[in-house]
């Protein structure tokens, strides 16, 4: 999969003239496309430090821009704008505005670890993607992504009981994201399951909600985890220069 660097040039900076002559030279048409030069003055010098302070972003400074991560990336193969190497480049240079152009797709990383597997510099690009998505949300550049909603629904159940119950996670996620539980394809899937599995058993699977799986004597672990999460949240916000005090009460 080639990396089309042309997509990195903003379309508004490409100009073609139907009829133009400069110093007696005809520069009309497609073959004389001009790329307007950019002047960058808005570096965020703290950007790399901020991403590094978030979990997963620790080793971003090690990147030597080989491009192996993007070349191996599952999401890049579907959407060429999803470009971990390029985003790491922007993080390292502090080019925040440029980075924000792609802010709405960063969360789509599927954590397949193809990048981390091939990275010759132990950058852990998968972790950097998560740190970057986290950074975008903490800074208020993006709304909470569906992925964050899912992670939090899932994690809150683990923290609460030590285990998860899948149907409860699914219901919780649909509730959080305002989607109906009765999705056409979920109904179609249930119908198929009914071919061989009696309704009684399916109901029993649904009723698992009543006998929620949980880990015994989880109370002490629950308390320790909650304290740790609250502490990390404060540390993350502080590293990004956000008001930590507002969250101290958690």
């Amino acid at each position, binding site marked *: 999969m080639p990396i089309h660097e042309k997509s990195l040039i903003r379309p508004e900076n490409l100009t073609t003239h139907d009829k133009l002559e400069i110093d007696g030279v005809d520069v009309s048409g497609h073959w004389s496309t001009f790329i307007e030069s950019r002047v960058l003055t808005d570096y965020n010098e703290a950007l790399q430090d901020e991403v590094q302070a978030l*979990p*997963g972003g620790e080793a971003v400074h090690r990147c030597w821009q080989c491009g192996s991560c993007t070349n191996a990336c*599952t*999401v890049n193969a*579907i959407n060429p704008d999803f470009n971990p190497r390029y985003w790491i480049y922007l993080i390292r240079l502090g080019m925040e505005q440029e980075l924000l152009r792609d802010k709405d797709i960063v969360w*789509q*990383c*599927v*954590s*397949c*670890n*193809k990048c*981390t*597997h091939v990275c010759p510099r132990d950058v852990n690009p998968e*972790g950097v993607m*998560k740190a970057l998505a*986290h950074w975008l949300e903490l800074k208020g550049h993006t709304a909470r*992504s*569906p*992925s*964050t909603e*899912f*992670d*939090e629904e*899932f*994690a809150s159940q*683990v923290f609460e009981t*030590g*285990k*998860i*119950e*899948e*149907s409860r996670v*699914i219901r919780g*996620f*649909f509730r959080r994201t305002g989607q109906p539980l009765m999705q*056409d*394809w979920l109904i*179609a*899937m249930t119908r*198929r*399951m009914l*071919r*061989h*599995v009696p309704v009684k058993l399916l109901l029993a*699977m649904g009723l*698992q909600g009543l006998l929620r*799986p949980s*880990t015994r*004597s*989880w109370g*002490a*672990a629950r*308390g*320790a*985890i909650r*304290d*740790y*999460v609250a502490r*990390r949240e404060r540390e993350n916000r502080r590293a990004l220069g956000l008001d930590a005090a507002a969250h101290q009460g958690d």
Partner: protein
Amino acid sequence: MTTVSPQKDYREVAYYPGCALEGTGHAYDRSTRAVAEALGLRLVDVRNWNCCGAMEVKNVDPKLQTYLSSRVMSIASEEMGHDVVMAPCNGCYHNLKKAEHDIANDAGSAEVVAELSRKAGHATYQVGKLETIHALDWIKRTLGDEGVRSRVKRPLTGLKVANYYGCMYTRPRHIFPEKDKGPGSESTARPHFMDDILAAAGAEIVDYPLKTACCGGAHTLSDSDLSTKLVVNLLRAAEACGADVIATECPTCHSGLEMHQVRAETRFGITTRPAMLYFTQLLGLALGIGPKALGIHENVSSALELVRERGLA
């Protein structure tokens, strides 16, 4: 670092089913236990286990995931005295392996694990005490290909199988120090343990180029269209290889393939033929176990129809 030692007895191991095997992956748990029974292998459930954190807790904080996995490993080793734990789920297997690696190599992770273990009131897991293996390793180390072959009662003759391993079983390589060690070891680039086992069970293995591609399991609900696209790729590639079956070794991959096969049909009118079966279901059939005891009737795809049609049930 734990290595395969001849003294270890893999015929009796601690068993960590994990949350998925109590829910959508129920048939994987059932077939794994049925296979163990048929082969005289003993699985001792880890007492009072907790979730390993799956794909989600690491996004809240990776060290928390390390702690969750370490608690399971602490119970299996310190409280129950086991030196091997078997996890059939790729997510659990991966997280326990990663915890072993991170506690050994990252002081920050070790510190968080020690702190949380102390506060939670259990022993801190000690690196090297426990070897985490996958269900594939378990069959390989107890029976091996020859052992499987000698116990086959109903060979899977004529069944064309594409083996799908997904992401978490091989990537990233640094958490699997025992892989890529030459002949006999598992390969991270071209894993083959499931191919070997099912070939020994008599199946016809097709050369499946997407065996370690991603099914998009992390976003199965949060970005469903992307997952459907990735799954359709997997299904179509298997079809193009002539496979009747995609054999799986992970509950998340398995239910992702099944769910998005239905979703591709419902939402996009894309129909694909392969049926999904856990490798333990296929192995179980070959060992002469009935389809019901292997939970094949619980599969969403047309697995039961297929095995009946082929006279395997």
